[in-house]
């Protein structure tokens, strides 16, 4: 067993703040309330901060360390299909795609939400349906994300959830002898 520091404090704080905020927005707060709007803006600010951090932050927080790549993701699928045991430092290729999906979707939810408060789109059914559709898409993506993290963690024998809390990944030994 050896441990590697992977996720810095900001990434971890960002992740769990987003979890709480999204849960509040989607499941707890009344959608017509002022609080719903305010938490929405908070989420947009969170994502804005994450984007900046993705450009100037620590190694595994940077977007350049997990660029979206379909060939790499397909290769990872192949590894899963053949039950190969390849663990990744930072985000895996499939993980990376999910992160970008969630960042973009949730950002769009916030943006469409804001649009609904403008004169131009006031009362617009289209924007409202887009907002709701995106929430369903993001919700389903989060469901897949949770299942994937659990399965990938089991498969590669690394506790990924714990890693996102403490920042350290505990990797099983790759002792060949």
């Amino acid at each position, binding site marked *: 067993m050896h441990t590697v520091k992977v996720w810095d404090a900001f990434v971890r704080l960002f992740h769990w703040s987003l979890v709480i905020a999204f849960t509040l927005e989607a499941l707890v707060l009344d959608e017509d309330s002022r609080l719903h709007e305010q938490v929405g803006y908070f989420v947009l600010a969170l994502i804005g901060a994450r984007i900046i951090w993705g450009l100037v932050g620590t190694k595994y927080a940077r977007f350049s360390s997990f660029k979206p790549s*379909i060939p790499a993701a*397909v290769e990872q*699928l*192949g*590894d*899963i*299909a*053949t*039950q*190969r*045991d*390849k*663990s990744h430092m930072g985000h895996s290729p499939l993980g990376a795609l999910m992160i970008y999906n969630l960042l973009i979707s949730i950002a769009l939810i916030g943006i469409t939400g804001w649009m609904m408060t403008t004169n131009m789109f006031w009362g617009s059914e289209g924007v409202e349906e887009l907002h709701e*559709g995106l929430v*369903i*898409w993001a919700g*389903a993506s989060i469901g897949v994300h949770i299942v994937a993290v659990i399965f990938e963690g089991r498969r590669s024998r690394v506790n990924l959830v714990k890693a996102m809390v403490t920042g350290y990944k505990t990797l099983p030994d*790759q*002792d*060949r*002898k």
Partner: protein
Amino acid sequence: MMHYEKQSKESLALIGLILAQSICALFFLSDVANDAYWMGWSAFGRSWHLTVEALATLALIMGIIVEARYLMQMLRRQSRIERGISIASGALHELMEEMFSDWKLTPAEQDVAGFTLKGYSIGEVADMRGSREGTIKAQLNAIYRKAGVENRGQLVSLLIEDLMRAPLIKRKTAMI
């Protein structure tokens, strides 16, 4: 290799199809859930429309599951071709796949068997799979047992024997 490129496009196309259908399934699922929530579960009994919609969504999801399983199988084949297993030809590769299937090897065992027949050492196979040598040895024992042989040499013989019995294919390929 043409065969490989075509396969790789097929898996991408299949992934795209699965994604598109998943989005549709998500849409219909949320629609059914929304209707059931607002109109009550009795709505299923009152009108056939909601029931048909729910069944259609279920069929769509079943289709997606079948496709996903097929995709995993395709990726397994592709992964072996990529690793140069079928350096020989389609015939040798097809035979291997058939034998693995007959012996009911697990995906992991299929991978190990393929590499072993190709000539990789246990250490090399362990590296490529990210496993321990001990794991590979255990998997090889399972493979030999399922194939009804005792060692690597006999495993290779099984393959060659079958190959000699199989009719030669029209196209000219170099068999090493």
